[in-house]
């Protein structure tokens, strides 16, 4: 006898089902929702959050959290813009180093990666709780951004840099391609490499991981570094789209990223969740933002609705797991 486990399917794909329901409802309520233009618009806006949330998922899977991603985004965007525009000039030795677009972008990503490494180092070496360590970095990186930019935007970055945020390739916006690459690389890391397996193992049971001889600090440090690098990529997209590095860019973006992770079904206790879930979570937030605007809902109510959705997602997840 063959039985189909409908309840199991519903649970497994609950966030995807929620997304589809949301889309159906919105396309019934407004004609503007289900158009190619609007869909591309949603994807373009969501790409940044997908990049950040993907890195956040890895960190959350180790049972950690990274609150500093919004500030890393701003700092790395500003550094990339600054290097591109002004290069590095050392007046004392009369040296000037200029940067190509590629060089500036890589430098920005490396800085994001290094800040992540530092986060992970502080957390594993000195046993500072991730919440506190990355909260401190949130402030530090924001301050460094202000210092670097003198509180002023760095603008007019040239057409080839602006292509990253505003261009299209094979009919899809470039940021969407970038987000897709980030997601695919991370899915590969999580499913096909030792690193990914260890992330799930540590998040699921850190004691057993220790008893299994896993190098826990190394895995955790790498996961924060990954989150930092992906936040930097998001920073470059944002800077390029505005053609300007804003010193206060990315403020509170960490909250949208955490929301996407949670809506996507990843447990904040670690060990349970997927990158694809987070992608769906981020798209749900994007669709919600877009739909509420199309429906002329006041921005104040938009926040109430978004918060309620997050709460609902977690409650549904908890109910599903208390049955086990």
């Amino acid at each position, binding site marked *: 006898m063959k039985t189909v486990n409908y309840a199991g399917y519903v649970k497994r794909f609950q966030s995807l089902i929620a997304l589809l329901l949301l889309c159906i409802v919105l396309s019934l309520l407004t004609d503007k929702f289900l158009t190619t233009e609007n869909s591309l618009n949603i994807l373009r806006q969501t790409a940044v959050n997908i990049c950040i949330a993907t890195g956040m998922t890895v960190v959350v899977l180790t049972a950690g959290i990274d609150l500093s991603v919004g500030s890393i985004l701003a700092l790395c965007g500003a550094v990339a813009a600054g290097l591109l525009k002004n290069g590095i000039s050392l007046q004392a030795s009369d040296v000037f180093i200029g940067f190509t677009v590629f060089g500036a972008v890589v430098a920005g990503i490396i800085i994001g990666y290094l800040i992540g490494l530092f986060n992970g180092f502080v957390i594993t070496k000195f046993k500072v709780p991730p919440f506190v360590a990355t909260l401190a970095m949130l402030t530090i990186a924001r301050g460094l951004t202000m210092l670097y930019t003198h509180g002023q935007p760095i603008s007019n970055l040239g057409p080839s840099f602006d292509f990253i945020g505003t261009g299209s390739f094979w009919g899809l916006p470039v940021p969407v391609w970038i987000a897709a690459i980030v997601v695919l690389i991370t899915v590969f890391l999580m499913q096909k*490499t030792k690193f990914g397996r260890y992330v799930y193992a540590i998040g699921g049971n850190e004691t*057993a991981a220790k*008893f299994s*001889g896993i*190098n826990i600090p190394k895995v955790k440090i790498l996961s924060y570094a990954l989150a930092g690098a992906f936040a930097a990529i998001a920073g470059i997209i944002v800077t390029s789209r505005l053609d300007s590095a804003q010193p206060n860019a990315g403020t509170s973006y960490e909250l949208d990223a955490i929301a996407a992770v949670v809506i996507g079904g990843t447990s904040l206790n670690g060990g349970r969740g997927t990158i694809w879930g987070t992608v769906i979570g981020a798209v749900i937030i994007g669709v919600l933002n877009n739909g509420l605007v199309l429906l002329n809902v006041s921005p104040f109510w938009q926040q109430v609705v978004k918060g309620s959705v997050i709460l609902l997602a977690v409650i549904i997840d908890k109910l599903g797991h208390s049955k086990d």
Partner: protein
Amino acid sequence: MLTAKNITKRFSGVTALNNVNLELYPGIVTAVIGENGAGKSTLMKIFSGVHTQYDGDIILGDEKVQFNSTKDAEAAGIAIIHQELNLVDHLSITENIFLGSELVDQFGFLRKEEMRKQTKKLLQRVKLNISPDTLIYKLKVGQQQLIEIAKALHTNAEVFIMDEPTSAITDKEVENLFDIIGELKSQGKTIAYISHKLNELFQIADRYVVLRDGMTVGEGKMEEISQDELVEKMSGRKIRIERSSGNASLADPMLQLSNISLINPDNRTGKLIDDVGFTLYKGEVIGIYGLMGAGRTELMETIFGLHPKFSSGQLAVDSKTVKFKSPANAIEAGIMLIPEDRKLQGLFLDLAIRSNISITILDSILRWGFVLNSKKEALVSRDYIKQLAIKTSTRETLARNLSGGNQQKVVLAKWLAKNPKVLLLDEPTRGIDVGAKSEIYRLIKELAAKGVGVIVVSSEIPEILAVANRVLVMCEGKISANLPIQEATESDMLRFAIHHNH
């Protein structure tokens, strides 16, 4: 005063208590004794309202009572002093003593001065000369134990049940405790005293009750029995024990320990392991027996590199001196541990059986140096599922959904896949069924036959006798006996486990 009549208690198929009778009288100290797992703690948990489902009657005074919670038992005048401390570290002594029963005035404000005064009196009774405002975490374990007792005194209980109250305290504090017990006795209170330390029992107890395998096997007056007779009663077992056959060849030393000590990492005073040394040979199975708290688990953890900061002494593998800073070092040297608590320390409950087995050998199934070869991984897990007869429909089943015995086999598989030189097993069959037990015994013997050195730590004498070639007995952090299997008898093992200074 307090009577248990025909108490039977089962845990999912295992009978922990079988028709037990126990009577406690006012003004009398009754010693409750038995091996690990004899049922003492279960019985005390029924008295204190922790276990509420059982057959039989509890009679307090002349009335039949049924406790549905620990609060019920407390209200009825039963105070339990637990082996593990139940104090809140960052509250003061006063706050702990009045926790849940704070005194308040008519406005609902705390009557701090009054509580402080009462606490001061209680501290005098337990002969602790410290301020009632001291925070608990600043006290030594022995002092904390006395605070537990003060807390029990504060409830004005009629019945006191003390579960290993001296396991963590110094001789001076033991004297204090005995004075308090004497005082309670003269006030006509009822006292049950659980301890492994027989000499203490002869000092303080009036009557004894012996439990064995969940049954009452003897009771009487303390003055009418000798220590040896008591040990005999505790161990005398009807079940015939299958003995392991003979010694291993003692040709190649595999693991040598000398002067291994471990300072208690919690309070950094006192030694959990005290100058332990022995050699494990190739193909040998050493069984380590001891009572709770003898330091067996800590010894395994020390060998496995889990206490690098607090341990001292020398360790050699294959006659080469080694120093392990972490389990990773130990594993590299071929030493692997199957830990005591498989759910907490051994398994990834939310990962598939396949991933649990392969977690230690991911390095050997990489393609191009970094991609996991899922085909190879599947093959490895399939082989071990078959070899160890792990009962599951697929290797993708989550470890969470397996029975205890099958979970333990998964933990075994995880290390077998890594080809251990030395395998340490800490309570390898705790809580698993008889069938799986004998399969694990068979596996241990097969491993030894292949030349693996094995150490089995167990609280069950039959288990040790079934698998070991040699028996070490631990007591208070020391090795108190080293017996060839032919000479190891149950009563000897128990004797060496109980009193070291003989």
